[in-house]
């Protein structure tokens, strides 16, 4: 399966924030979740892919093409939703469609109006009168109306009600069923990704912590809960993050099998959720 997205040694220096040596790839026909706390660099990566920011080093290939040299070709096959949907507020949704559609050769009016109906968006309502959730839905409708091969979504579920969030996730899952379309989905609502993502890329402080298949991550990472007497120099090094309490500790490990061997019968070992991983890796460092 060819890669729809390949990022190699990508760096961007803002002065007060640096994206350092980021590498990851997404095979065609899969969903990749980009997770990390606020300010980790998720939006920066997405903006670099869309050439809204200029990379200092590294390369980004989309559909095997350089995202800068073949910008128009690449973007013609991408559907995107930014974290804040910026459209011309006074225009109606129908007029907005008229300003966007001509730029896509595969724009499909039928799909667009069907999505408006499904999302309960009135075509003649001005964009400024929509709620944040409705604005996000409209941005999604635009992104999905030109038969894009690669959908890039930056925090699309923030501001959406749980019902529509589930609908959106189901829609994205359905989208990749033909194994031709791919999705890159940035969020800090990790439960969304546990439902639909095939790959997880975790970014923290501008660096990739891991970029792996979700099942592999959820299988290998575990949370260990035990008494404080289990914490010694060796176990502290073994854990990726520890939260110590009065009567015991919770810690994250990237080697669940080794944890079972070491702490069998002495501690509770549970599968780590993506939220656990994000929490321990960002807030629960070895501060016990």
């Amino acid at each position, binding site marked *: 399966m060819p890669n729809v997205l390949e990022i190699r040694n990508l760096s961007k220096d803002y002065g007060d924030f640096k994206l350092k040596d980021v590498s990851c790839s997404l095979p065609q026909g899969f969903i990749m979740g980009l997770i990390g706390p606020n300010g980790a660099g998720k939006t920066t990566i997405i*903006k670099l892919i*869309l*050439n*809204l*920011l*200029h990379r200092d080093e590294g390369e980004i290939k989309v559909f095997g093409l350089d995202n800068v040299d073949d*910008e*128009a*070709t*690449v*973007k*013609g096959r*991408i559907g*995107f939703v*930014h974290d*804040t949907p*910026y*459209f*011309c*507020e006074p*225009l109606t949704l129908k*007029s907005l469609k*008229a*300003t*966007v559609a*001509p*730029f*896509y050769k595969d724009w499909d009016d039928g799909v667009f109006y069907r999505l408006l109906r499904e999302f309960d968006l009135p075509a003649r309502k001005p964009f400024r009168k929509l709620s944040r959730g409705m604005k996000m839905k409209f941005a999604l409708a635009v992104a999905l109306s030109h038969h894009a091969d690669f959908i890039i979504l930056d925090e699309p579920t923030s501001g959406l009600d749980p019902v529509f969030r589930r609908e959106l996730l189901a829609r994205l899952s359905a989208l990749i069923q033909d194994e031709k379309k791919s999705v890159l989905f940035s969020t800090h609502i990790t439960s969304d990704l546990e439902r639909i993502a095939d790959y997880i890329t975790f970014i923290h402080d501008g660096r990739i912590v891991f970029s792996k298949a979700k099942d592999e991550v959820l299988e290998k990472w575990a949370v260990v809960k035990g008494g404080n007497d289990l914490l010694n120099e060796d176990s502290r090094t073994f854990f990726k993050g520890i939260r110590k309490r009065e009567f015991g500790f919770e810690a994250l490990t990237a080697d669940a099998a080794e944890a079972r061997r070491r702490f069998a019968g002495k501690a509770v070992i549970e599968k780590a959720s993506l939220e656990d991983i994000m929490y321990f890796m960002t807030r629960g460092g070895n501060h016990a």
Partner: protein
Amino acid sequence: MLKLCAKDLVISRWFWLLVLAADILYFTFPSQQNLLFMISGVGLVLVCVFITLFLDDRLKTEVFYASLPLKRSTIAAARYVLVGFLAIVSAAWTFVYGYFLNSVVKLRFIRIDLRSLFSVEGIAGYLFFTALLAALFFPFYFRHGLARGGFIFAAVCLALGSLVIGLDRLAAKVLSLARPLLTSEFLKDPGLGILKTIGGVKASLGVPLFIGGLLVLIAGMMFISIRLSIRFYEKREF
């Protein structure tokens, strides 16, 4: 590029019509001069372009349009095409409205010499000043954004105006090289004064050379300006 201009038309059309309404109202006031009428043509273009850029800036739609399947160079060049389109519409409107005021309404307090304006000198002046302002403004806009770019543009215009006046005084009074441009006769109706000055240049060069020189000058200005704008916009980050 035309798609981008069409997009601007859809977004800004009602605001442009408001500007037109203001223009209509403005010229119902007495003591209008040819200069004001000439400036109103260029002014219409500038205000309409400014409104379009202001809407983009305020609603932050630049990020969205920069994400569409377009090259930055296309987006930058489309702004110049928009100016060209608005310049044609504005010129047509200015003459139609001027004709209406002179011939239909026949208000005695409005003195507009349409024949002078609809001449080689008038059209040359209109094209030159519209092109000069666009060529000056856009590189600053694409480098610094609307607010800062607009401020620098205004400062540069002021500096250029002062330079022209200063050079005129220097040439005429200190060095005694030429007759001063800014005489009391000129200031009575600067519009006709400007046309007379352009007429003087045309007479000394001859019509073919004058038109050829003007076109080369405008093309040169626009070429340099577009290259700079594209270079600046390609470096811009969102």
